[in-house]
């Protein structure tokens, strides 16, 4: 890839990351109590996060169907990089179960974990380090 294109890619990713983070903050996905209360159907259920998903899926889903699908390639690259796997396998199910377990324990998923690093709270940093260790172990295990 040409250097110019590389920096353009970087700029787009930086803007997209900033917007994504703002979306997480505005919607309060960064608030662990908000997330845990959403998951607490039989207690103090706060349905707000269902609307986060609704808003996100609405914009992305409609945009994908109308603006991405009919096109053969993105504006700044040769092709769309989309997952090719189609079948439901054991890895997908096991991974989703483990992720759900961790998410339910703490109430935070990867995006909000990174945004929350700015609080410089030791536990948020600890969570991110543990998450990186988890990813590293999973990668080492799957490369064996």
């Amino acid at each position, binding site marked *: 890839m040409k250097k110019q294109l590389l920096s353009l890619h970087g700029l787009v990713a930086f803007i997209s990351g900033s917007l994504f983070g703002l979306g997480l903050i505005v919607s309060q996905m960064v608030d662990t109590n908000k997330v845990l209360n959403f*998951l607490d159907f039989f207690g103090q259920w706060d349905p707000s996060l269902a609307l*986060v998903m609704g808003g996100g899926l609405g914009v992305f889903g409609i945009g994908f169907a109308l603006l991405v699908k009919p096109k053969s390639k993105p504006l700044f690259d040769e092709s769309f990089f989309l997952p090719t796997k189609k079948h439901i396998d054991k890895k997908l199910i096991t991974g989703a179960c483990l992720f759900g377990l961790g998410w339910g324990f703490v109430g935070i998923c*990867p995006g909000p974990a990174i945004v929350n690093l700015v609080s410089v*709270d030791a536990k948020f940093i600890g969570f991110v380090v543990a998450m990186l260790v*988890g990813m590293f172990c999973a990668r080492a295990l799957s490369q064996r």
Partner: protein
Amino acid sequence: MTEFTPISALIGGAILGFAALLLLILNGRLAGISGIISGVMSTGQNAFWRWAFIGGLILSGLIAPWLNLSMPTMLTASWPLTLIGGFLVGFGTYIGAGCTSGHGICGIGRLSLRSIVATLIFMLVATIVVFVSRHIVGA
């Protein structure tokens, strides 16, 4: 106890849907955050845009106070739960190829059956964990 905040939830969700759409239309990449984070460990030019995206995520947290947006200042879970939870989130999203953003928004938004199944599973498991910890263990 948290308040039901439908308007900010919907607006916030729309913003992150738009951010993901922008990355796909312009760069051809999916905004799956777990994949972006684990991908920075790779080498080569594909690491660059991932670092830029993570830089953007951190910037959003830094400018939030300027925009009068509130952010949590601390994590309430205990240390052991925080570390075990973090490990499971990292391990699980790597093995399962996605998290709330990659499967929940980008995957379901593309009508991927794998993502629909993965999202239903991690939502169900997280709901059970919260039920057990709040209403059985914590009761």
